[in-house]
């Protein structure tokens, strides 16, 4: 009777093959494409790329071992990404989800990105359903918790964050086949978070550190970002951008690539204003060129902001 209902494919219980061709496995899984994409799209981040390549190799070998019947259990895949803001943690998490999907460690490979607000409730009895809701959405994919240390507030012992942490830990342990949790945040505060929540530390296998970008890398990022929107720098504007990056880094609330993106947004605003003010017809080249003046007009060059603005 139930034969005509499609069942999900179960692993065949046949004899294990005698050998495994890792290279063929590597090609067939499509991991190579993800790694190439990572190399192509992300500038800098050499140590991160190295760690991800290592992790991919480990998972590939682990999969081969499972195919040969050498191991049964799912490896712990939960990770922590530490680094300053704007260093590409979310982007890499997205790539990681794709990687895990190709390797068959998560079924759907989507990324659910949350912060404390999405997990912790406002009143008693609000937190558990809220956290579970998020976890259900993340099932079959990757749950990315940005600034995870905000979950734990040692100064307030009645904080509901603790409840969310307990549910998270339980799911991280019991549903290892169903979802992968990635915690992200600043290195020092994550360290303190792990110290006060040893349960998390022991359940996380991979710690990946994201270094700050160098000025040269940031400039390349700026050029790439502009190219993606069909803009370009004049040579003088590129030199101005180089100075801008050096000046911006010294000022507070520097957020690596995110600061660059915001700076470019403002430069485009000034460019639009300049074109608007200039009379006469405008050609496509003028519409897509950022001039030196558009960058130099930034307040960063005048020793920063007179009044301290909120973080960008």
């Amino acid at each position: 009777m139930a034969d005509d209902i499609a069942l999900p494919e179960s692993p065949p219980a046949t004899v294990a093959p005698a050998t495994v061709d890792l290279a063929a496995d590597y090609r067939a899984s499509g991991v190579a494409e993800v790694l190439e994409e990572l190399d192509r799209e992300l500038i800098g981040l050499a140590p991160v790329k190295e760690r991800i390549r290592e992790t991919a190799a480990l998972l590939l070998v682990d999969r081969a071992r499972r195919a040969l019947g050498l191991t049964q259990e799912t490896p712990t895949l939960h990770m922590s990404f530490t680094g300053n803001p704007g260093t590409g943690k979310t982007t890499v998490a997205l790539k990681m989800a794709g990687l895990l999907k190709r390797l068959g460690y998560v079924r759907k490979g989507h990324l659910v990105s949350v912060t404390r607000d999405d997990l912790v409730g406002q009143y008693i009895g609000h937190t558990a359903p809220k956290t579970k809701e998020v976890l259900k959405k993340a099932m079959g994919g990757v749950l990315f918790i940005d600034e995870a240390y905000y979950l734990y507030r040692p100064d307030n012992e009645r904080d509901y964050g603790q409840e969310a942490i307990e549910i998270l830990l339980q799911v991280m342990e019991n549903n290892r086949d169903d979802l992968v949790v990635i915690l992200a945040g600043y290195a020092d505060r994550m360290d303190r978070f792990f110290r006060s929540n040893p349960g998390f530390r022991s359940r996380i296998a991979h710690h990946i550190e994201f270094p700050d970008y160098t000025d040269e890398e940031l400039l390349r990022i700026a050029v790439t970002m502009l190219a993606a929107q069909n803009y370009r720098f004049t040579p003088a504007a590129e030199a101005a951008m180089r100075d801008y990056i050096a000046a911006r880094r010294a000022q507070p609330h520097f957020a690596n690539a995110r600061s660059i993106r915001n700076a470019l947004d403002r430069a485009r605003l000034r460019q639009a204003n300049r074109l608007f003010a200039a009379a006469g017809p405008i050609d496509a080249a003028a519409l897509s060129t950022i001039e030196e003046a558009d960058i130099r007009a930034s307040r960063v060059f005048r020793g920063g902001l007179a009044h301290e603005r909120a973080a960008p």
Partner: protein
Amino acid sequence: MRVTQGTFSFLPDLTDEQIAAQVEYCLRNGWAVGIEFTDDPHPRNTYWEMWGNPMFDLRDAKGVTMEIEACRKAHPDAYIRVNAFDSTRGWETVRLSFIVNRPKVEPTFTLTRTEVRSRSQTYSLGTAR
């Protein structure tokens, strides 16, 4: 008496894998899946009690099967059904509904005949345990 309501109810009870596969199908179609339970399977009892909110934006059936498990644990002796709601304009209705849990002993139905004015007969269906 075996209650036959919703899809698949003339088939043997679905296994957990089969339930997961059906839910997967619902999610693939972009339907919102909800879980409801009741102890009264009377055909006129259309509004069953909701187990939590309907689940939107799920990607994987695991989220639903977890809730089914939780509902079974809390109400082992109730009828539990899974509803899949299609919000597409023009449909805006439940597209698939099937029972995933039954009590060990299912109630029977009794037919009551009542004589009313002018010797007319009215019939009503009642649940009896």
